[in-house]
């Protein structure tokens, strides 16, 4: 499946999105370079995007001006042996009186212009540019500006200077993304034998391929013999007819700037954001386990209280209203009495910070370093505030167990049993008193099987009361355990809500922005 590269307008839209997302996420200088490309694209496209600007660039003495004259078929540019020869940029165009050409050349800051050069193809603007490597360093700035702005770059080199560092490291090696609009002309081949010229061209081709300029065209030329000049003219005519060089050059700019931005965004997937770990760590910092345990204790006490049978309740009431000594005893047990004021929850800031650092660390480990600080910033700039928020959320979770409908039933049942035992006891007591007073019993009490009824009531009641008491404690413990689980779940949910809002959502948003940037840059580099 051949994936066609996206057209320029789509790429520019993507670049706009990158510029928006990249704010504070990509190094400012690189983002500025990307913005400059975006602005340049607007500037170029608003000045005759159907025109094609081709510039002859290269070192001093490589024969740019001679080639310019040969292509324009006239002595427009002065040539000479004194180096450097060309002082300012010079333009020639077939028409060139038009306002579009004028605006374009104004933007390119080319002072010397030749209109009506019939030898040049329609809609082509040909530039002769000063050298980039002579002692006249003022020329270099002119070259740099034009290399940035023209559509087709025709690099003119000669057999002596084709391997110069200033050419390759200074320019060609950075133009890999622009290979489509780069033409390298090996000029002055007449100085070599045919065989040497081939060897020389092959060596140059190897250098270009090594710089990623495989797609760049290479032409041997000689102005003196005319060799290769028609081929160069044909090539320029094709470019002029296609009228796409400006767009292709800008696509190259976008691709190359995307490649520059890519290391800031990175290729790797972000590490996992393990929600449960973050929530557990925050909950741990807030001592949620202790809070749940307290809730369990209180729930158990409340259940016991709710299921307390009548007589025991009376006993307690006596104790409560009882003598001074008992009150003192009760005061010594202040911490277990149900309904004691709840301590305000408190989250340990160190634990909170640590939880955040761990979460960010895992996410950011595969990412470029900038993202670590970025994630730190969005997730954890205010650990103390987060600690307070977590504590607040814990505080809002109700801990008190609701009263159960069956508590009074159990209490009533146990009360009934206690009552039955009491009735049996009183009855037996009455019988005993009657017997002691030698009063005749009216009739023998009814019997349950072999056991007389009062005895059965007392003993059976006591036995059932003991069993019921154990059951009551068992029920209270089970209720409390269930309550603890529910409270623990509620507490975790509350912590999770805070974590979601203050930590997880910002981290996810940041990672989402990064994923989008990464996808955009991949598309832009393609």
């Amino acid at each position, binding site marked *: 499946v051949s994936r066609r590269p996206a057209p320029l307008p789509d790429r520019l839209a993507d670049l706009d999105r990158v510029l928006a997302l990249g704010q504070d996420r990509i190094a400012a200088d690189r983002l500025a370079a990307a913005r400059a490309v975006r602005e340049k694209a607007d500037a170029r496209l608003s000045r005759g995007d159907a025109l094609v600007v081709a510039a002859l660039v290269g070192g001093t003495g490589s024969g740019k001006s001679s080639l310019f004259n040969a292509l324009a078929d006239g002595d427009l540019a002065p040539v000479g042996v004194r180096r450097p020869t060309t002082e300012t940029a010079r333009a020639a165009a077939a028409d060139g009186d038009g306002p579009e050409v004028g605006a374009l050349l104004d933007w390119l800051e080319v002072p010397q212009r030749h209109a009506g050069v019939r030898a040049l193809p329609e809609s082509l603007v040909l530039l002769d540019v000063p050298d980039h490597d002579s002692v006249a360093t003022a020329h270099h700035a002119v070259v740099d500006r034009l290399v940035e702005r023209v559509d087709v770059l025709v690099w003119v080199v000669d057999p*002596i*200077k084709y391997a110069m560092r200033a050419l390759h490291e200074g320019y060609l090696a950075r133009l890999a993304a622009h290979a489509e609009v780069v033409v390298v002309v090996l000029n002055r081949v007449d100085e070599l034998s045919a065989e040497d010229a081939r060897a020389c061209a092959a060596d140059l081709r190897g250098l270009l391929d090594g710089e990623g300029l495989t797609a760049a065209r290479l032409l041997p030329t000689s102005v003196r013999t005319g060799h290769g000049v028609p081929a160069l003219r044909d090539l320029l005519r094709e470019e002029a007819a296609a009228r796409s060089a400006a767009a292709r050059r800008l696509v190259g700019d976008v691709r190359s700037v995307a490649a520059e931005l890519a290391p800031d965004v990175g290729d790797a997937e972000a590490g996992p954001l393990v929600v449960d770990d973050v929530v557990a760590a925050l909950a741990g910092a807030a001592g949620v386990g202790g809070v749940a*345990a307290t809730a369990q204790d209180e729930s158990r006490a409340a259940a016991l209280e709710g299921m307390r049978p009548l007589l025991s309740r009376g006993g307690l009431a006596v104790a409560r209203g009882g003598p001074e000594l008992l009150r003192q005893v009760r005061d010594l*047990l202040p911490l277990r009495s149900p309904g004691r004021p709840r301590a*305000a929850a408190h989250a340990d800031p*160190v*634990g909170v910070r640590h939880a955040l*650092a761990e979460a960010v660390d895992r996410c950011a480990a595969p990412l470029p*370093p900038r993202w670590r600080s970025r994630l730190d910033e969005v997730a954890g700039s205010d650990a103390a505030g987060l600690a307070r928020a977590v504590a607040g959320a814990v505080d809002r979770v109700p801990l008190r167990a609701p009263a159960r409908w069956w508590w009074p039933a159990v209490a009533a049942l146990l009360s009934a049993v206690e009552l039955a035992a009491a009735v049996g006891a009183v009855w037996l007591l009455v019988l005993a008193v009657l017997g002691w007073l030698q009063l005749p019993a009216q009739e023998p009490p009814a019997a349950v099987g072999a056991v007389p009824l009062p005895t059965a009531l007392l003993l059976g009641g006591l036995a059932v009361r003991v069993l019921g008491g154990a059951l009551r404690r068992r029920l209270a413990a089970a209720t409390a355990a269930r309550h603890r689980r529910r409270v623990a779940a509620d507490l975790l949910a509350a912590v999770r809500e805070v974590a979601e809002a203050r930590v997880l959502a910002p981290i996810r948003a940041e990672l989402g922005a990064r994923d989008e940037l990464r996808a955009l840059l991949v598309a832009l580099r393609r």
Partner: protein
Amino acid sequence: VRRSAPVALPFGPADRRARGHVLDEELREALDALRDALVAPALDVPTPTRAADRDLRDRLVAEVDAHRARVRDLDAPLLAVFGGGTGAGKSTVANSLVGQSVAATGVIRPTTSSPTLLLAPSDAGWFTGAADADGRERVLAGYARSFPGDGVAGRQTGRVVHVVDSHAIPPGLAILDAPDVDSVRAENRALADELLDAADVWVWFVTARTYADEEGMRYLRRAARRRTALAVVLNQVHERDADEIVADLRDKLAAEGLPDVAVHVVPHTATQAGRLPDRAITELRRWLRGLAEPDARLRWRRQTLDGALDDLERGAAPLLDALREEERVVADLRAAAAAAWDAVPVRFDTALEEGPPLRQEIVARWTDFVGTNRFTDLVESATASVRGWLRDAMATRTSAEQERIRRQVEAEVADTIADLAVRVADLAAADVAAAWSGDPAGAVLVDADPGLRRARPDLGERAEAEVLAWQQGISELIATKGESRKLTARWASTAINAAATAAILAAFASTGGLTGIEAGIAAGAAGANQALLVKLLGEQQVAWILRRAREDLLARITRLSTEEHARHRAAVDAVAPEPGAGDAIRDALAAVTRARR
């Protein structure tokens, strides 16, 4: 060519000394010391410029080596280096001078990648072999040698000098055909730079097309600054353009501060077998022959040497800057690590004040226990005389339960404090990593050992051991202090253990933490604990013991933090420069200046 065979030197060492040509002994020693000082710094700090700085240093060392050789043997053959851009015709002229193809020529640029040395057969001893009869290193000591007889295997590239002797070269002169200074091959440029540093005379090649190149002119500017003996060969000039180009070249040379430089024109002629016709180089050959005269030789060499020595300080300045930068980076990294780790005890202390997340149910159970009258009774029984069997029986049961809860509490405290210590240390390490990542060299160090982002994995265990030792220390302290309270033997240990646990808990919240925590479990715990302690030990003792406990805990945490800090310190120390490396170089440079006065 003789390899290390004995050769007839032009002058014996004794002769030279007698002729007064041996420079001051002091200068030689100063140069030796300078070399040692330059070699000393390892330049290990991974700054972005580290590779460049090391290259710079290597080049300075090579240059000083060249000076040492020159100072030692002022009578040695003059070394004239053919330098210039690629395609300037250096090798073609060299071949033409000796009348045979000894250096590679061709259309592929750059052509020359390893230097060729042309010399008179009688001078071979100066340049071949590892050392001369006196055991001194040869000129160009850092290079291997190859000879025409070596065949293909000998034609290596790179740091190899091809030595060719020829009677066409006058005795007292050696010509070195160097690689280019301006092609894409970085190793060629480095090699050429080194050879030019070692040269007594530069013979600089330009062509009609390249004479205005900025890359070449930078070298000529350097030669002007250093007063290097220099001649320019203008090659491949058509006769008709010669006057105009020579005039323009002279203007440009004058503009760079080289008004009086000799310019030799080699006209553009067809080559034959890679050589120019003899008439094209007659003038150049005559000039070179003039260099070989003993007086001229000495003059040229002294000029170049003086200029180079004058320029040494300027040449070493970037290295000194690099060393200063290393020291700055290292100081910054150290300061960042120290700031983070020094803050650990404070952070830990603050966290204790704010109340660490002790599992409250355990503390509550303890507090219940301490708060009950049963326990108070127990304490009473421990402090008062025996109260009878009933109380004893009750106390025995109580004491077993107390022991169980006490152990739970101490384990919980140990866990919590150890956890807190690990977290605080983790955060400190993360802070160091964040601070270091802001610096390119620091980022390299962190990336090299990602473990530096966190506390050491065994810190938890070490922290727990420290906390247990701390608890032990409190028990002993209370045992010592409690003795005076006349505890009865039977309950002494129970009471002391209980008091120790109370003190351990009190350390969390006794020094003001109470204000931060509202009424509740913690306050209750603190209150009950304090009450128990006061009952056992008396108020003054308690205050003293609690202070001691807190200080001891912080001291232990500080020790742990110092151990963790050591890892970051070691990471920096491994690359940190020896202190005073820059000063040693500065001193050695000053000594060279003094020796030349």
